[in-house]
């Protein structure tokens, strides 16, 4: 089944709040080999001017993917998950995420473009605090390879 082109432009409901924890930031930093104490040591992060330990820039994918998962797995969208590869990714940060942030995401399918037997699905996910402060915009392009 092909991806449903009628989903282009659709904006989905905001996610449930996600609370950024020190443990999750440290786990993610370990997994990518990021050695900075600013990801692990609250005193070091505060000495650098941050409220608490900060997340590496690509940590936002953990939150944006969780938010976008309900989009990608919507059966009516018709994505064949096994044939998906990641095409492009970008992040635009107003500030780093830090431990203690409670954020919600909202995703919009920006475009769905068939291209040479493949389909490119671009989703934009806004990450904001529950108070409405913008933290990050993530733009994700998935490529469904031809079956």
């Amino acid at each position, binding site marked *: 089944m092909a991806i449903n082109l009628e989903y282009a432009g659709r904006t989905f409901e905001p996610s449930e709040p996600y609370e950024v924890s020190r443990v*999750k930031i440290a*786990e*993610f*930093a*370990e*997994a*990518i*080999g*990021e*050695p*900075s104490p*600013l*990801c692990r040591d609250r005193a070091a992060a505060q000495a*650098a001017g*941050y409220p608490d330990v*900060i*997340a*590496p*820039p*690509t940590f936002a*994918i*953990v939150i944006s*993917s*969780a938010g976008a998962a309900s989009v990608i797995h919507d059966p009516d969208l018709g994505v064949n*998950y*096994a*044939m*998906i*590869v*990641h*095409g*492009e*990714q*970008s*992040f*635009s*940060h*107003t*500030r*780093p995420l830090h431990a203690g942030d409670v954020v919600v995401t909202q995703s919009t399918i920006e475009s769905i473009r068939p291209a040479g037997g493949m389909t490119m699905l671009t989703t934009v996910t806004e990450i904001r605090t529950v108070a409405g402060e913008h933290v990050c915009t993530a*733009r994700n392009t998935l490529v469904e*390879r031809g079956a």
Partner: protein
Amino acid sequence: MTSPSYDEVAAGTELPPRSYQVTRRDLVRYAGASGDFNVIHWNERVAKSVGLPNVIAHGMLTMALAGRFVTEWAGDPGAVTEFAVRFSSPVVVPDDDKGATVEIAGTVAEKLPLNEVRVEITARSEGAKVLTRAHAVVRLP
């Protein structure tokens, strides 16, 4: 390594190139930390059945290494404001102890206002460009 200041970098300043190893163990750990359990990142049988040469690394792990390359240079994981990549070729991770090698290099392409610089990044694995159009905007002290 002390972090560079905005005043001491110029367009053309090269970041010290780095080489990172990515093993199957790293993929398992990244899957757990990120929540991306797509089977092509850990199951050789399924990866090959969908036409891939072998298990491939998460694109986001490759991007994270490129991010680390930049933030280690800048001395602050919070210094990156913009970060964008295109995944042009997969990082194929063999089932051995060495894994794949990802070689990352970068150059300051442009100095921007507000102490920010734009860094162009290249990443290669086994001779293939694995990231293209990769760049980060980084705030320097």
